[in-house]
């Protein structure tokens, strides 16, 4: 039974990991709370849902959803975050909360607040048994996609010019602009990519749970991704994946062995105690600290 719980935890964790990678990119690089992350990619996910519902090829639909997320987040960055870049910490956070509200209301007005069944129709969902443990194929796909994305992004950050520019910006924005890096364009692209990763994560999240509703944005998106990012270590992609796994493991084990009603309560309590003891997370980023 414990092994089964472990497998479940791994699959829940890999779903969270996909969401956390996108979140952690923006959060780690700009050190700015992005409250709107979840709600922006939720719009993309609903676009995917609508397109699939009207019979468009799933791959094309996902592409359109990713494009929507990218454009939305670039626009939001341009008009709501960029003017506030040097304005302390409260102003950008409140602005992001405002964007989250706007996006949530847009979803509510266009698609309504109901829960819809969600099925991509490309990933054959089946399961097989290994020594008494049920493993779903979808869970394996999600884990593989999460790890591949993590690997690709870390390689891109390390070996491409754009990646190095992003790392430079994360260390110091004034220095980066002195080195001739187009800071505004790179930051806009980081936000856009964050939303693209969010849409991928959101679509897989929805196909894992087989439904889509308005709450995938904030309570299942932003909050879980934020917790996973801090748990694993801000600004490190490996940390985001590991943090998500730990989050999934904690959730599954607590609902299995302690109490399923009080699951969120215990997860939050453990989380708060953890970040008080180790605020940098499990795997802090290997970047020289700004002092």
């Amino acid at each position, binding site marked *: 039974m414990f092994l089964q719980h472990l497998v479940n935890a791994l699959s829940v964790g890999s779903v969270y990991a996909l969401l956390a990678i996108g979140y952690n990119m923006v959060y780690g690089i700009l050190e700015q*709370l992005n409250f709107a992350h979840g709600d922006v990619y939720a719009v993309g996910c609903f676009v995917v849902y609508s397109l699939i519902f009207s019979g468009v090829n799933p791959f094309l639909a996902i592409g359109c959803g990713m494009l929507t997320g990218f454009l939305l987040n670039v626009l939001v960055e341009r008009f*709501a975050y960029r*003017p*506030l870049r040097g*304005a302390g*910490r*409260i*102003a*950008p*956070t*409140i*602005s992001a*909360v*405002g*964007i*989250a*509200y*706007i*996006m*949530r*209301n*847009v979803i*509510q*007005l266009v698609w309504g607040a109901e829960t819809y069944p969600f099925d991509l129709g490309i990933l054959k969902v089946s399961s097989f048994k290994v020594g008494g443990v049920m493993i779903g194929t979808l869970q394996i796909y999600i884990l593989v996609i999460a790890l591949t994305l993590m690997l690709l992004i870390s390689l891109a950050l390390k070996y491409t010019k754009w990646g190095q520019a992003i790392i430079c910006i994360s260390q110091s924005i004034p220095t980066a602009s002195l080195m001739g890096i187009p800071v505004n364009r790179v930051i806009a692209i980081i936000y856009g990519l964050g939303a693209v990763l969010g849409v991928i994560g959101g679509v897989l999240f929805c196909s894992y749970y087989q439904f889509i509703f308005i709450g995938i944005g904030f309570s299942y998106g932003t*909050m879980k991704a*934020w*917790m996973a990012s*801090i748990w694993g270590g801000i600004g490190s992609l490996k940390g985001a994946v590991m943090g998500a796994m730990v989050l999934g493991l904690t959730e599954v084990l607590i609902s299995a062995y302690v109490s399923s*009603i*009080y699951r*969120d*309560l215990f997860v*939050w*309590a453990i*989380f*708060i105690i953890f*970040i*008080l003891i180790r*605020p940098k997370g499990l795997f802090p980023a290997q970047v020289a600290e700004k002092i």
Partner: protein
Amino acid sequence: MNQNKMKKLLPLAVLGIAVATMPLYITNSYALKIICNVMLYSIITLSINLIVGFCGQLDFGRAAFAGLGAYFSAIMFTKVGVPFIAAFIGGGVFAALCGAMLGMLCRYTSFDYLTLITIGFGEIVRRIFLNWQSVTNGSFGMSTQRPSFFGVTLKSHQSMFYFSLVLLVISYIVIRRITRSKMGRAFQAIRDDPIAAAYTGIHVPNYKVICFTVGSFFTGIAGAAMAHYTMFTAPTNYTTDESLIMLQMAILGGLGSLPGSIIGTIILVVGPEISRSFYQYRLLFMGVLMVALMLFAPNGLFGRHGIKDQLVAYYRRIRGKTAKGGGNNG
């Protein structure tokens, strides 16, 4: 000098009389109910202003403290049978104790972590309200009674109006005194620069704990009063969204300005009541308001260099009159 003081006091006195006699000329009980709501929400907004505006700690879990005060007072008064005044003050004290605990937890943490811990705390508290059914009656919420002092129950809206008014005036005066005391100056120093504050001999962690304790007391009192006024309390009233709306009231009025808090509360409580069909677009409106405020007037209506100050400066420039003396701020 004396005449100057008179000039300043006269509008205040007129306003005071106008507010105090409100139940005489507003007889519509629906309107009175909204006014009571405004006053009780104002107390919460003032406490948020103390924590966010004066001490600079971005707290996203205020609604939970209103809930703690409300549930404690309701349970003590209705189920245990404690006299109202003890249950009511007890609600505030209980919220203050929880605030002190939260303050202890985030004594050494800075911005992002503090925000996350307050959200987590709010979520934990809401889960307890939802699931501890034997005490809180779970998601159905629990009903309670109107306040009663020494055998007199405040049944009418008019009596509740005066109850809320007295509560608001006391809270306003106490919070105003706090912000102008040594403690308030310490809070502002922490907001402006914690490191510099520490070097001037301010014990930053201790003052943060004090700030959360005092703020939570007022939030709890207001929450308890709301629960007794509506005679009902349920976990859906204490979500993170509710906290954000309360925070938005303080930000709209202007962080660091106490009269601004009350104005912000009036706008955001009365606004949605004017048109019910507006309810559908409530979040959109709030979101646009938040972003626009942050972009064009991050200090709100009455904060330092806020919209009011800008308008006054513009008016003076047009009149070609030089500024004389300090404006009233506070």
